């Protein structure tokens, strides 16, 4: 029995010593150390916290960031949002993003946030999240994982390496160090550090002589490209889409305002993603689906995939096309703030009827202005109007105009009234078929949460039967796109025409606005 006890005792003592050392040194940051973050906060000015101290304990760190500040606005997403930080002096912003995050972890993170204060959330959505083969980082390692860690030889060897480099770790697990002009709570010169708002700092930023992220070598091999996160991506994962919907539903149930966005990629990657036979279809589907999904929950979407839309340049990527630097990231922040803080943007599209030039309608307010006021009252938000309607425009011209207009892409609400100039008595060669096709394409490009269509009235310059056919066709196309349509044709009469007998009078505009208002303001 004595020998059995010696055998088991020797093993137990040695494993205990290994576990104790690994726990104390924690070489790969598997244990949450709130005291280190407290030390950083207590310093004046506040220090950065080294990644060595935080390690993989992102979730408790980010929740601590959120709770320790009066957070009213936060961003979450993958490592590509980590450079989005606070404005100078801003205390109410937190970066809750994490490297290799997945929608499941975002949901878990959001569920952990206190539900008292209404928040504004900027949600960075990655296309690769919807690759079923992508697996995110496990932010809640279980007991067995921790036991394996403290009893691991590789952790022990790393602990010994750290102790050789920084013997003070025997007594103090971290200390205040200087990297360039910054103080950092850590135990060696860190490659990465965290600000107390949760945003990330590369060590080359405070000290250019230190670590700079390597340029990510571009490859067309999907198994190697960005560690294989796009490999085998043959469909948009329904499970992950469901989780994203759960995130948006959670935000809505808590009364949060949400702006979704996707971080930018370098031009070379963008071209590759768009043209690759495996990724391309998914890439395009993602681009179409996200605005619709966010719109369904009443939220806005900013598509930053093309860095030029922010605008950022190739040199703004620190690693050749994946992670953006601080300047570009803060420009993204500016765009997000503008989208969140400006109230709603109402865009009007169409011809001279929505354009409502006073000399044509002899009116002070067109139906777009009247509708904008009502929308503002109904949603309790300021509404800025962009009336992009062009007198004389027909559906073909409108289609060409809206396709690449970022103002249309980022609109919160859109009113569309087109077709009068497609009639044969205005444009010889115009037809219902052409209008239907163009309108179909136009509505396919509009992704604003609120889109309303109105058909046009009979100004009695052409055949009444043809005008009726146009009016019915317009609403039929709108119905196909599940867009509400105001039937102006039925409600309008000749008394509501302006003296030019072409455009609506002020009363006519009021009627059109009333018909549009009756369609409601969902999803707002």
């Amino acid at each position, binding site marked *: 029995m004595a*020998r059995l006890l*010696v*055998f*088991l*005792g020797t093993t137990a003592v*040695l494993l205990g010593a290994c576990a104790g050392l690994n726990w104390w040194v924690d070489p790969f940051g598997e244990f949450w150390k709130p005291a280190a973050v407290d030390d950083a906060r207590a310093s004046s000015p506040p220090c950065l916290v080294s990644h060595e101290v935080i390690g993989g304990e992102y979730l408790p760190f980010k929740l601590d960031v959120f709770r320790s500040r009066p957070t009213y606005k936060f961003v979450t997403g993958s490592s590509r949002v980590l450079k989005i930080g606070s404005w100078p002096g801003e205390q109410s912003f937190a970066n809750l993003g994490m490297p290799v995050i997945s929608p499941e972890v975002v949901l878990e993170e959001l569920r952990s946030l206190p539900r008292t204060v209404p928040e504004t959330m900027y949600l960075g959505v990655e296309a690769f999240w919807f690759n079923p083969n992508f697996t995110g980082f496990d932010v809640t390692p279980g007991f067995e994982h921790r036991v394996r*860690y403290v*009893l*691991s030889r590789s952790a*022990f060897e790393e602990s010994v390496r750290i102790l050789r480099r920084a013997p003070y770790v025997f007594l103090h697990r971290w200390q205040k160090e200087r990297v360039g002009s910054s103080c950092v709570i850590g135990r060696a010169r860190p490659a990465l550090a965290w600000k107390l708002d949760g945003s990330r700092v590369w060590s080359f930023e405070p000290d250019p002589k230190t670590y700079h992220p390597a340029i990510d070598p571009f490859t067309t091999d999907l198994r190697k490209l960005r560690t294989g996160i796009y490999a085998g991506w043959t469909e948009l994962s329904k499970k992950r889409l469901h989780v994203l919907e759960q995130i948006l539903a959670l935000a809505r149930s808590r009364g949060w305002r949400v702006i979704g966005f996707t971080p930018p990629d370098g031009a070379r990657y963008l071209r590759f993603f768009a043209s690759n036979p495996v990724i391309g279809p998914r890439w395009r589907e993602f681009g179409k689906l996200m605005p619709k999904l966010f719109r369904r929950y009443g939220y806005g979407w900013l598509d930053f995939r093309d860095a030029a839309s922010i605008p950022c340049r190739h040199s703004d990527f620190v690693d050749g096309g994946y992670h953006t630097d601080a300047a570009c990231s803060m420009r993204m922040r500016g765009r997000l703030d503008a989208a969140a803080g400006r109230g709603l943007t109402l865009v009007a599209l169409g011809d001279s009827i929505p354009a409502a030039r006073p000399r044509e309608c002899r009116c002070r307010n067109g139906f777009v202005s009247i509708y904008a006021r009502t929308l503002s009252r109904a949603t309790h938000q300021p509404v800025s109007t962009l009336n992009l309607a062009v007198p004389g425009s027909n559906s073909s011209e409108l289609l060409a105009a809206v396709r690449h207009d970022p103002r249309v892409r980022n609109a919160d609400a859109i009113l569309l009234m087109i077709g009068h100039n497609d009639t044969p008595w205005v444009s010889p060669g115009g037809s219902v078929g052409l209008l239907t096709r163009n309108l179909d394409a136009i509505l396919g490009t509009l992704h604003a949460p609120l889109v309303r269509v109105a058909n046009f009235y009979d100004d009695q310059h052409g055949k009444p039967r043809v005008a009726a056919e146009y009016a019915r066709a317009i609403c039929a196309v709108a119905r196909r796109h599940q867009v509400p349509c105001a039937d102006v044709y039925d409600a309008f009469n000749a008394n509501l025409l302006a003296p030019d007998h072409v455009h609506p009078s002020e009363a006519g505009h009021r009627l059109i606005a009333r018909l549009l208002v009756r369609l409601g303001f969902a999803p707002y």
Partner: protein
Amino acid sequence: MLFNSFVFLFVFLPLVVVAYFALPSHRARLALIVVASYAFYAYAKWWFALLMAASTLVGFVGGQLVERAPTVGRRKLALGVTAALLLALLGAFKYAAFVGGNLTSFVGVITAHGFPGFHAFLNGIVLPIGISFYTFEGISYTADVYRRKLPAERDPLRYLFFISFFPHLIAGPIVRYGILQPQLLRKHRFDVDRVRAGLLLFALGLAKKTLVADGLATWVNRYLDDPSSLHAFEAWAAIVGFGFQIYFDFSAYSDMALGLARIFGIELPWNFNRPYRASSPIEFWRRWHVTLSTWLRDYLYIPLGGNRKGERRRDANLLATMGLGGLWHGASLNFVVWGLYQGLLLLATHRVRRLALRVPPAVAVGVTFVAVMFGWVFFRLHSAGAIGDAVSAMVFARGLGQFPGHLVVLIVAACAYTALVPEEWTWDVKSFGFARVATVGAVLAVAIASIYTSHPFIYFRF
């Protein structure tokens, strides 16, 4: 559950050992082991346990039917049906994807139509670990009853224990019921020396796995994961390294199984006896995975006629036995090729023996070593392209390349160990004094600390 996992080492094993000796009744202990073994097996996937239960039921009922059959013809029929049912289970889970995949590919080539849905279905079949081992155990039991070497077991609990006993469940040794049954009839008292000996053997096995086999695996995989980049030095070092890796890996598992069984008072048959010291391929197979080679001999080679029907028939029987033995390792053509290669080595040995050459023992050992090592190419690499790459590198068709110093040092150390140190299961661990016991305890601590980066046992996939 794996032997080299924390849940096994720190939860499962201590609980089962304590509960086993705490139970007063022998039958309760057997029942405990059966329940624990099923939990051990179901830990990977719950339905694995159902599959093993089905295989156990077939074997148990089959044994009864074979024994009770009134005529030789009916006994043969009962044996045939039982073996067919057991093999059907094995075939469905292990070989359906292989056979179906090759058939559909063949049909696809002829008709120019693929069967992606069927391929996806076949690829979705999960291989239950250990199924090859307990299927062979069930067949050997029924065949032994048929040959009247042992009576059919009337006690389902003992038969359940025989099939499911967790130390040998996943990767052997392949136990015959005749060896186990007498040990199940008597109650095993708690014998501290035996328990300590079992633990020490287990610890030595775990150390061999995590410190030696896994150490070799890291380097070997680095080379063999991309055979197209190999040159002669690297290819030979990688293949010889793999030969030692698989030996240390599998013999480690066998030592651990023997040690674990010994804790419970059960002695399992040994599997390895310094195989790389063999002076001929025939001797190699008497030293390597002995419970499989003797199973193949007794239940396949001899029933096929063995060497009783002339030389040609013997040669054909040998090739068939070794080819099927290769296929047993995995549903892949490379294993069949490996088995046939081993069969050819055995045929060559018979031919050479007839010449009555006087070969110095060292030369015989060296030639056997090289021949066996070369065969591992077919075992380790699965595609014809990869095998071709490795072989062309080994025959110097791609130049010498760089000398893989790290791997060669490990190989030399492994070679010296196998040449000088007897198999651990032969060590008299019971008589170890305090110093040796403490040393093994320290080695066990290092082995446990190395589990974090450990590779799965190679033979688990068979």
